[in-house]
């Protein structure tokens, strides 16, 4: 009973805050307290949805397509590389400082060079986003493979598991939670990578839509487009979370 009451109160607070914010915002815009050039009224933003709807959705589609391609590549490279590094000890220890250094480095510093070598268009966006997304997955999977419960490996060996069986029946299932966590992280990183390239180089897509709207001082349209891409991102991540939960029944933990 308490739980239901509390949930209701939580929803009430959320609903009221959002409503109050929107009302105050609308009021401030109408009263002229804020410059409509920089802070458009919510009503103006709503109207803008109609105007830029088509272009924004086209741009979003472009961006998401590139993100999907980069994501698949990033997962393959990240999981594959992670398995390799996690399994081969000397290789991992040798390569570790390089990986950490590259991981900690803001990849955007390399972006100009990538643009120089790959030109404009979808290719540098996909390449950059792949690199961006692959690293966290690689680091996570490497750690997970390295940290597989030693007891489980011993048990499998005691029951005569050959090397292939060891990987297929013990290591891979054991790292599934980490792979899922990495995949959730990876999608945000890949999307971010694509957007950055689109903004930096004016490549077709949502990033370009956003930056050109900003350059044109079209505030209501910009807010609308931003809201659109934010909503899309939240939906994608939430879907992955649901998938994650479904696949982790045996863990039974609440994230």
């Amino acid at each position, binding site marked *: 009973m308490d739980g239901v009451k509390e949930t209701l*109160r939580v929803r009430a607070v959320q609903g009221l805050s959002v409503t109050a914010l929107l009302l105050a915002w609308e009021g401030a815009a109408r009263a002229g307290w804020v410059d409509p050039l920089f802070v458009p009224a919510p009503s103006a933003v709503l109207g803008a949805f109609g105007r830029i709807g088509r272009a924004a959705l086209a741009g979003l589609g472009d961006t998401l397509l590139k993100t999907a391609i980069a994501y698949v590549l990033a997962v393959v490279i990240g999981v594959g590389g992670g398995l390799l590094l996690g399994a081969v000890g000397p290789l991992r220890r*040798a390569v570790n400082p390089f990986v950490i250094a590259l991981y900690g480095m803001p990849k955007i510093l390399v972006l100009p060079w990538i643009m120089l070598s790959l030109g404009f268009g979808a290719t540098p966006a996909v390449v950059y986003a792949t690199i961006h997304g692959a690293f966290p997955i690689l680091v996570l999977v490497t750690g997970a493979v390295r940290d597989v419960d030693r007891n489980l490996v011993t048990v499998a060996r005691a029951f005569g598991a050959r090397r292939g069986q060891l990987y297929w029946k013990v290591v891979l299932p054991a790292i599934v939670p980490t792979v899922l966590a990495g995949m959730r992280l990876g999608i945000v990183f890949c999307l971010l990578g694509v*957007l*950055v390239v689109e903004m930096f180089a004016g490549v077709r897509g949502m990033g370009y839509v956003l*930056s050109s709207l*900003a350059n044109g*001082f079209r*505030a209501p349209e910009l807010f609308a487009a931003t809201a659109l*891409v934010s909503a899309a991102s939240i939906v994608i991540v939430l879907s992955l979370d649901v998938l994650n939960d479904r696949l982790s029944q045996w863990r039974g933990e609440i994230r």
Partner: protein
Amino acid sequence: MNKQILLIRAAILVGLLGAWEIAGRLANPLLYVPPSAAVPALGRLLALRSYPDLAQHLLLTLREIVVAYGLAIAAGLGCGFALGFNRLVGRAYGPILAALYAVPAVVWYPSLMLFFGLDAASKIAFGFLLGFFPITLAVLAGIRQVSPQMLVVARAFGADGLMAFRKVTLPAMLFTLVGGLRTGLALTVIGVIVGEILGSKSGMGSLINHAYGLFRTADYIALVVVTLVLIVGSDALAAVVEHRAQRWTE
């Protein structure tokens, strides 16, 4: 076995540098600047010959980072404690925060540029935005990990309210908190630099853009190196503080 590892590392380094050198000589020198050309470029940069006002730009970037980080700490700690200590507020706004975290931050940048212009303000705002989240999340995680048992014990000894916070909660969560502060700094730095590269008139990012635009690849590499030193330096500082905190909590 250690020798084997060092050998592999050396081989990788030599291999990379060698491949770079060869590519620079044989292929497009504009693209593959060989180390033999990059090192003198770095020298020219540090001697302030390629970019005489390097110091100003560097200082500006540093200033942006410091201001953004300060704001991120203030807001991060404030929000974190507000959400952490008040159950209703935490449950109401926590999910909203988590949802916002799922949005790639760069999505907000054009709006920031519209509002703040191309100057330092938009970079500070962006850096703040990136650094704010990990700090808030770290505060929340830190509060959650304080065992209620400890607080019960504290109250049994007559300490509650502010004193309990100072003597029990704060030390218990310090380690997590400092970790979050370190991550926050790293992200703030990235935010400022990304902001500068995506569009600015001054700062290290703008110099990088400038060199790139003019195909001055060697200078570009030198600028990247200097920026990396800035980044690594700031993280090293944060790591030192983190280790100190680790010693206190043990």
